[in-house]
Protein backbone atom coordinates (compact mmCIF):
# COMPACT_ATOMS: atom_id res chain seq x y z
CA UNK A 1 0.00 0.00 0.00
CA UNK A 2 1.52 3.35 -0.99
CA UNK A 3 1.77 6.09 1.56
CA UNK A 4 -0.57 8.27 -0.48
CA UNK A 5 -3.27 5.61 -0.39
CA UNK A 6 -3.16 5.33 3.39
CA UNK A 7 -6.19 6.69 5.14
CA UNK A 8 -5.67 8.54 8.39
CA UNK A 9 -7.78 7.77 11.42
CA UNK A 10 -8.71 10.01 14.34
CA UNK A 11 -9.73 8.11 17.46
CA UNK A 12 -11.81 10.25 19.83
CA UNK A 13 -11.99 8.92 23.38
CA UNK A 14 -14.69 10.55 25.49
CA UNK A 15 -15.32 8.23 28.39
CA UNK A 16 -13.46 7.86 31.68
CA UNK A 17 -12.10 4.56 32.85
CA UNK A 18 -11.89 2.13 34.66
CA UNK A 19 -15.68 2.46 34.88
CA UNK A 20 -16.13 1.73 31.19
CA UNK A 21 -14.25 -0.54 28.85
CA UNK A 22 -14.68 1.92 25.96
CA UNK A 23 -11.54 3.80 27.02
CA UNK A 24 -9.52 0.63 26.71
CA UNK A 25 -11.12 -0.20 23.36
CA UNK A 26 -10.19 3.26 22.04
CA UNK A 27 -6.58 2.86 23.13
CA UNK A 28 -6.32 -0.69 21.72
CA UNK A 29 -7.71 0.53 18.41
CA UNK A 30 -5.17 3.35 18.31
CA UNK A 31 -2.27 1.02 19.10
CA UNK A 32 -3.44 -1.61 16.61
CA UNK A 33 -3.77 0.97 13.83
CA UNK A 34 -0.27 2.21 14.58
CA UNK A 35 1.11 -1.33 14.85
CA UNK A 36 -0.13 -1.92 11.28
CA UNK A 37 1.71 1.18 10.20
CA UNK A 38 -1.36 3.27 9.41
CA UNK A 39 -1.57 6.95 10.34
CA UNK A 40 -3.57 7.48 13.53
CA UNK A 41 -4.10 10.14 16.18
CA UNK A 42 -5.83 10.00 19.55
CA UNK A 43 -7.91 12.86 20.95
CA UNK A 44 -8.94 12.88 24.62
CA UNK A 45 -12.18 14.81 24.75
CA UNK A 46 -14.50 15.73 27.65
CA UNK A 47 -14.51 13.07 30.36
CA UNK A 48 -11.91 11.17 28.30
CA UNK A 49 -9.20 13.42 29.78
CA UNK A 50 -9.77 11.69 33.12
CA UNK A 51 -7.91 8.69 31.66
CA UNK A 52 -4.77 10.83 31.91
CA UNK A 53 -4.70 11.38 35.68
CA UNK A 54 -1.21 10.27 36.71
CA UNK A 55 -0.19 7.78 39.42
CA UNK A 56 -3.03 5.41 38.69
CA UNK A 57 -2.77 2.15 40.60
CA UNK A 58 -5.32 -0.35 39.43
CA UNK A 59 -3.71 -3.34 41.17
CA UNK A 60 -6.34 -3.44 43.93
CA UNK A 61 -9.22 -3.49 41.46
CA UNK A 62 -7.31 -5.97 39.33
CA UNK A 63 -7.34 -4.43 35.88
CA UNK A 64 -4.54 -3.16 33.68
CA UNK A 65 -3.21 0.33 34.38
CA UNK A 66 -4.53 2.32 31.45
CA UNK A 67 -2.31 5.33 32.00
CA UNK A 68 0.79 3.13 31.78
CA UNK A 69 -0.43 1.69 28.49
CA UNK A 70 -1.10 5.24 27.24
CA UNK A 71 2.51 6.06 28.06
CA UNK A 72 3.64 3.34 25.64
CA UNK A 73 2.15 5.15 22.62
CA UNK A 74 5.44 6.72 21.47
CA UNK A 75 6.88 3.20 21.14
CA UNK A 76 4.07 2.53 18.66
CA UNK A 77 5.28 5.69 16.88
CA UNK A 78 2.26 7.65 18.04
CA UNK A 79 4.42 10.53 19.17
CA UNK A 80 1.63 12.94 20.06
CA UNK A 81 -1.78 12.72 21.58
CA UNK A 82 -4.28 15.56 21.73
CA UNK A 83 -6.02 16.72 24.89
CA UNK A 84 -9.13 18.90 25.26
CA UNK A 85 -7.84 22.10 26.94
CA UNK A 86 -11.15 23.03 28.61
CA UNK A 87 -11.75 19.56 29.99
CA UNK A 88 -8.18 19.28 31.29
CA UNK A 89 -8.59 22.62 33.07
CA UNK A 90 -12.01 21.67 34.40
CA UNK A 91 -10.57 18.53 35.98
CA UNK A 92 -7.42 20.16 37.34
CA UNK A 93 -4.96 18.50 34.99
CA UNK A 94 -1.80 20.46 34.35
CA UNK A 95 0.78 20.07 31.60
CA UNK A 96 3.02 18.21 34.06
CA UNK A 97 0.30 15.57 34.52
CA UNK A 98 0.01 14.81 30.81
CA UNK A 99 1.96 12.14 28.89
CA UNK A 100 5.03 13.29 27.02
CA UNK A 101 4.10 14.47 23.56
CA UNK A 102 0.60 15.56 24.65
CA UNK A 103 -0.71 18.64 22.87
CA UNK A 104 -3.48 20.72 24.43
CA UNK A 105 -6.11 21.66 21.86
CA UNK A 106 -8.90 24.22 22.05
CA UNK A 107 -12.19 23.78 20.21
CA UNK A 108 -10.88 25.28 16.96
CA UNK A 109 -7.87 22.95 16.98
CA UNK A 110 -10.12 19.97 17.84
CA UNK A 111 -12.28 20.80 14.88
CA UNK A 112 -9.21 21.10 12.65
CA UNK A 113 -8.24 17.57 13.75
CA UNK A 114 -11.69 16.28 12.81
CA UNK A 115 -11.32 17.82 9.36
CA UNK A 116 -7.76 16.59 8.83
CA UNK A 117 -8.44 12.83 9.00
CA UNK A 118 -10.17 10.47 6.59
CA UNK A 119 -12.08 8.58 9.25
CA UNK A 120 -13.21 9.47 12.76
CA UNK A 121 -13.94 6.80 15.35
CA UNK A 122 -15.98 8.03 18.30
CA UNK A 123 -15.52 6.01 21.49
Amino acid at each position, binding site marked *: *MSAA*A*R*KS*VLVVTRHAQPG*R*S*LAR*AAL*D*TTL*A*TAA*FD*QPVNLLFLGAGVLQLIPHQDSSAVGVRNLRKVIDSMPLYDVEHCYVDTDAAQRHGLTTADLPSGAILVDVAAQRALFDAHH*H*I*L*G*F
Partner: protein
Amino acid sequence: MGMAVALNYCLLIMAAPASGYTSLTAARFGAAVIAQGHILPRVFFLDGGTSNGLATAITAQDEKSPLTEWTQLATAHGTELVLCVSSAVKRGLLDSAEAQRHGFPAATAHPQFALGGLGLLVEAMQSADRVITFGAPE
Protein backbone atom coordinates in the same frame (compact mmCIF):
# COMPACT_ATOMS: atom_id res chain seq x y z
CA MET B 1 -30.79 11.76 -4.79
CA GLY B 2 -28.50 10.63 -7.57
CA MET B 3 -25.43 8.69 -6.68
CA ALA B 4 -22.55 8.58 -9.08
CA VAL B 5 -20.34 5.84 -7.65
CA ALA B 6 -20.80 2.98 -5.28
CA LEU B 7 -19.01 3.64 -2.02
CA ASN B 8 -17.21 1.09 0.13
CA TYR B 9 -18.57 1.15 3.71
CA CYS B 10 -17.24 -0.26 6.95
CA LEU B 11 -19.41 -0.31 10.08
CA LEU B 12 -17.97 -0.30 13.58
CA ILE B 13 -20.46 -1.49 16.18
CA MET B 14 -19.86 -0.67 19.84
CA ALA B 15 -23.49 -0.92 20.98
CA ALA B 16 -24.54 -4.05 22.86
CA PRO B 17 -27.80 -5.60 21.62
CA ALA B 18 -29.41 -5.92 25.04
CA SER B 19 -28.95 -2.27 26.08
CA GLY B 20 -31.32 -0.62 23.60
CA TYR B 21 -32.11 -0.87 19.92
CA THR B 22 -29.02 0.81 18.45
CA SER B 23 -27.65 -2.47 17.13
CA LEU B 24 -30.97 -3.04 15.29
CA THR B 25 -30.66 0.46 13.83
CA ALA B 26 -27.11 -0.35 12.74
CA ALA B 27 -28.16 -3.60 11.05
CA ARG B 28 -30.98 -1.76 9.24
CA PHE B 29 -28.50 0.90 8.18
CA GLY B 30 -26.22 -1.82 6.81
CA ALA B 31 -29.09 -3.22 4.73
CA ALA B 32 -29.95 0.29 3.50
CA VAL B 33 -26.34 0.92 2.47
CA ILE B 34 -26.51 -2.14 0.22
CA ALA B 35 -30.01 -1.29 -1.02
CA GLN B 36 -28.66 2.09 -2.14
CA GLY B 37 -26.10 0.36 -4.34
CA HIS B 38 -23.07 0.59 -2.09
CA ILE B 39 -20.90 -2.23 -0.81
CA LEU B 40 -20.44 -3.37 2.77
CA PRO B 41 -17.66 -5.97 2.85
CA ARG B 42 -17.19 -6.03 6.62
CA VAL B 43 -18.86 -5.10 9.88
CA PHE B 44 -16.52 -5.00 12.88
CA PHE B 45 -17.90 -5.48 16.39
CA LEU B 46 -15.87 -4.09 19.27
CA ASP B 47 -16.23 -3.79 23.05
CA GLY B 48 -19.88 -4.34 24.12
CA GLY B 49 -20.80 -4.62 20.45
CA THR B 50 -19.33 -8.12 20.31
CA SER B 51 -22.39 -9.42 22.19
CA ASN B 52 -24.26 -9.09 18.89
CA GLY B 53 -22.64 -12.38 17.91
CA LEU B 54 -23.83 -14.39 20.90
CA ALA B 55 -25.46 -17.53 19.49
CA THR B 56 -27.49 -18.19 22.61
CA ALA B 57 -29.24 -14.81 22.86
CA ILE B 58 -33.00 -15.24 22.94
CA THR B 59 -35.29 -12.50 21.65
CA ALA B 60 -39.01 -12.39 22.40
CA GLN B 61 -41.07 -13.64 19.45
CA ASP B 62 -42.72 -10.28 18.92
CA GLU B 63 -39.42 -8.36 18.82
CA LYS B 64 -36.62 -8.24 16.27
CA SER B 65 -33.48 -10.20 16.97
CA PRO B 66 -30.25 -8.32 16.21
CA LEU B 67 -28.58 -11.70 15.67
CA THR B 68 -31.07 -12.56 12.90
CA GLU B 69 -30.75 -9.14 11.27
CA TRP B 70 -26.96 -9.41 11.14
CA THR B 71 -26.83 -12.98 9.92
CA GLN B 72 -29.35 -12.17 7.18
CA LEU B 73 -27.06 -9.39 6.02
CA ALA B 74 -24.17 -11.86 5.91
CA THR B 75 -26.20 -14.53 4.11
CA ALA B 76 -27.79 -12.23 1.55
CA HIS B 77 -24.81 -10.04 0.73
CA GLY B 78 -21.71 -11.86 1.91
CA THR B 79 -20.91 -9.17 4.46
CA GLU B 80 -18.23 -10.43 6.80
CA LEU B 81 -19.14 -10.15 10.50
CA VAL B 82 -16.04 -9.90 12.70
CA LEU B 83 -15.98 -9.88 16.50
CA CYS B 84 -12.88 -8.34 18.08
CA VAL B 85 -11.36 -11.43 19.65
CA SER B 86 -10.17 -9.87 22.91
CA SER B 87 -13.50 -8.07 23.51
CA ALA B 88 -15.35 -11.25 22.58
CA VAL B 89 -13.57 -13.82 24.74
CA LYS B 90 -13.84 -11.46 27.74
CA ARG B 91 -17.61 -11.66 27.29
CA GLY B 92 -17.67 -15.42 26.84
CA LEU B 93 -18.07 -15.32 23.07
CA LEU B 94 -15.94 -18.16 21.73
CA ASP B 95 -15.72 -19.70 18.29
CA SER B 96 -14.93 -23.41 18.13
CA ALA B 97 -11.16 -22.81 18.06
CA GLU B 98 -11.25 -20.55 21.14
CA ALA B 99 -13.65 -22.91 22.92
CA GLN B 100 -11.25 -25.77 22.35
CA ARG B 101 -8.26 -23.67 23.40
CA HIS B 102 -9.88 -22.73 26.70
CA GLY B 103 -11.39 -26.13 27.34
CA PHE B 104 -15.07 -25.40 26.79
CA PRO B 105 -17.30 -27.96 25.08
CA ALA B 106 -18.81 -25.76 22.36
CA ALA B 107 -18.67 -22.41 20.61
CA THR B 108 -20.89 -19.64 21.96
CA ALA B 109 -20.45 -17.26 19.03
CA HIS B 110 -22.83 -17.69 16.11
CA PRO B 111 -21.04 -19.51 13.25
CA GLN B 112 -21.64 -16.62 10.86
CA PHE B 113 -19.48 -14.38 13.03
CA ALA B 114 -15.70 -14.73 12.90
CA LEU B 115 -13.40 -13.84 15.79
CA GLY B 116 -10.50 -11.70 14.62
CA GLY B 117 -7.95 -9.12 15.62
CA LEU B 118 -8.20 -5.35 15.34
CA GLY B 119 -6.03 -5.69 12.24
CA LEU B 120 -9.21 -6.63 10.39
CA LEU B 121 -10.75 -3.29 11.38
CA VAL B 122 -7.57 -1.47 10.35
CA GLU B 123 -7.63 -3.24 6.99
CA ALA B 124 -11.33 -2.46 6.42
CA MET B 125 -10.80 1.21 7.30
CA GLN B 126 -7.99 1.47 4.77
CA SER B 127 -10.19 0.33 1.90
CA ALA B 128 -13.37 2.05 3.09
CA ASP B 129 -14.70 5.33 1.72
CA ARG B 130 -16.95 5.60 4.76
CA VAL B 131 -16.56 4.31 8.28
CA ILE B 132 -19.76 4.64 10.29
CA THR B 133 -19.67 4.02 14.05
CA PHE B 134 -22.66 2.98 16.15
CA GLY B 135 -22.40 3.33 19.91
CA ALA B 136 -24.98 3.71 22.64
CA PRO B 137 -24.98 5.15 26.15
CA GLU B 138 -24.92 2.56 28.89
